[in-house]
């Protein structure tokens, strides 16, 4: 197994089979501790029922509560291709908060819909939040096909409804798969129940997704932390993405001045380049005015330098944010004052209900789409392109919100 692990989240209406699907994924990939499934099977039999995979998660959660399993928030399974992590958010609030703050970033999502019930309000809210978080790798599964006699017409009807809504929220699922999590149809294996379906199983679909690319393959973003003048003038910082090399032609943003890398300095090492994740120093051929917060890039594939940003933020301060309020905007090492110019949309992070459009305030634990105007130009990126320059925090005295950038005005 050479590939990195893929983190994904399963969302959908509460009764549409999320827990059963997780239980089934763990069971079909032999990822459950020995004996667990037998315990659940016996309990189900005691109550005169067939095994219900939904209880697998309860069992695992119970062990977590008792400290038996090590990890507290993530569930793992593997296919022949790679390892998977199901990000387990206890509620919407935590999911949205973790996704925006970067605490647990899902790279893909599975949206689950009940074949009998079809698209419900909660399905729509969840899809909306996936769109808001910019998740592009999405599989929709139409579950409980066993309850509709594996009927193709029923599948097509639900699929049509779902696709219409998803197109409104700009989500294009890679696959729409008919499944029965209860019976195991089209999760890990093809069964003879739906010969009319020729697409992948859920695991094949997930295997086709890409893990986050190595930050080395992205364009260079060297974020300046400080400038020291010893016998030479060293610009210290961190390579957030790309690779910086001696001799490279660089541009310093936001000023836009050009120069060349004279040397790459790493403590106690003689190097000529540094890759993503390294904290290093550089010297330049020309003595330019460079300061903390500047971003050094190559002159191809440049970030945006702007004073106007459209973003989704998660507000986490008891005192509401008022439209027009001045806050501190921090992105990488950049720190400037900013004003919330417009609050386009406010959403309840718990119910995912729309609270207001063109609002005047955002209250604690609400998610909002806002327009931010900074008092000086900042170097930023769309969150989905380069995460490190697409994520920011807003603060009064302390941090009050985290956010992800969705659009910038040049």
């Amino acid at each position, binding site marked *: 197994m050479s590939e990195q692990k893929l983190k994904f989240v399963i969302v959908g209406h*509460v009764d549409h089979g999320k827990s059963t699907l997780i239980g089934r994924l763990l069971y079909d990939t032999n990822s459950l501790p020995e004996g667990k499934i037998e315990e*659940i099977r016996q*309990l189900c039999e*005691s*109550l*005169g029922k067939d095994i*219900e995979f939904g209880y697998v998660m309860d069992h695992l959660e*119970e062990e977590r509560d008792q400290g038996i399993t090590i990890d507290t928030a993530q569930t793992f399974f593997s296919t022949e291709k790679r390892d998977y992590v199901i990000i387990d958010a206890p509620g919407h609030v935590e999911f949205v908060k973790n996704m925006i703050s970067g605490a647990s970033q899902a790279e893909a999502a599975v949206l689950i819909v009940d074949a009998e019930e079809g698209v419900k309000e909660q399905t729509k809210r969840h899809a909306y939040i996936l769109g808001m978080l910019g998740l592009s790798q999405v599989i929709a599964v139409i579950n409980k096909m066993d309850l509709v006699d594996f009927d193709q017409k029923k599948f097509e009807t639900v699929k049509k409804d779902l696709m219409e809504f998803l197109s409104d929220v700009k989500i294009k699922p890679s696959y729409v798969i008919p499944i029965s999590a209860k019976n195991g149809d089209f999760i890990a294996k093809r069964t003879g129940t739906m010969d009319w379906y020729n697409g992948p199983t859920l695991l094949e679909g997930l295997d086709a997704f890409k893990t986050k690319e190595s930050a080395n393959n992205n364009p260079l973003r060297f974020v300046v932390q400080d400038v020291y003048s010893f016998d030479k003038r060293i610009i210290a910082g961190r390579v957030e993405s790309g690779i910086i090399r001696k001799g490279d032609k660089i541009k310093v943003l936001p000023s836009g001045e050009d120069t060349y890398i004279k040397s790459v300095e790493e403590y106690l090492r003689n190097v000529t380049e540094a890759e993503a994740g390294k904290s290093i120093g550089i010297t330049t051929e020309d003595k330019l005015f460079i300061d903390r917060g500047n971003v050094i890039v190559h002159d191809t594939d440049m970030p945006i330098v702007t004073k106007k940003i459209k973003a989704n933020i998660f507000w986490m301060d008891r005192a509401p944010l008022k439209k027009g309020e001045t806050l501190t905007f921090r992105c990488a090492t950049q720190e400037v004052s900013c004003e919330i110019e417009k609050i386009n949309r406010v959403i309840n992070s718990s119910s995912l209900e729309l609270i207001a459009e063109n609002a005047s305030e955002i209250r604690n634990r609400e998610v909002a789409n806002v327009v931010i105007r900074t008092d000086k130009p900042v170097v930023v990126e769309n969150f989905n392109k380069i995460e490190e320059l697409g994520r920011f925090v807003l603060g009064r005295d302390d941090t009050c919100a985290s956010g992800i950038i969705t659009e910038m005005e040049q």
Partner: protein
Amino acid sequence: MIVILAIDALEYSLVEEFNCYDLKQKFYGKTDISEFSQPRTIVLWSSFMTGKNMEKEIVSIGDKEMWYIKLDIENTFFNQFKNPKIIDLPGFTYSKEQHENERKLLKEFFDSENDEEKRNIRAAYNNIAFEHHRKIKQEFTSALKGDFDLVLGYFSVADVIGHLNFGNRTMMKMIYKDLDEIAGMISNTFIVLSDHGMERVGIFGDHSNYGFWSTGFKDIGNPRITDFAGIIKEMAEVKK
């Protein structure tokens, strides 16, 4: 037909936690059993069916013997119905053998000092409780299709299993979901009622000092268990 789903030790907080929609119905809450010195099963169900506090009378019979009493129908609100079906209710139709078997195993469990033996006793105890539950469920489901004007099904599984396994969340959730499914099968007007709830004591469970109620037709606030005889009589009147 009026249906009473009588569930021993149905715990309010678990009904909430496990989202048991059908057990909750439209209106639900806790009962007030503070007039009783202890939440004793026989005392509470006897008080329920007679509509009066039976604590003194029942306790005077003795802890063990009280389980064998069978109240006369004329002393209960069941006499308001022409053709009532009362399934397994303590103090009225409860299976003496079932109770004795459970008590015996419970005693053996707490007397044993050997872990493996304890595991085996617990398994045997759980088995007889589940077996009884399946039997009662079957009887109750059949009664719902019968020609009765009152069906009362008493389910002891949450209490019996809870005493030795209340710390096993998965097991308790499965039981609550099964009871919820039973509530979901009832198409008539029904009341869900418990004598008391249950609180966790390590991995075990002990009776809590309130019960659970739900109805689909009326918010009855924080009723006493003795209020239900009157409420059910009223329901019967309305039906007539």
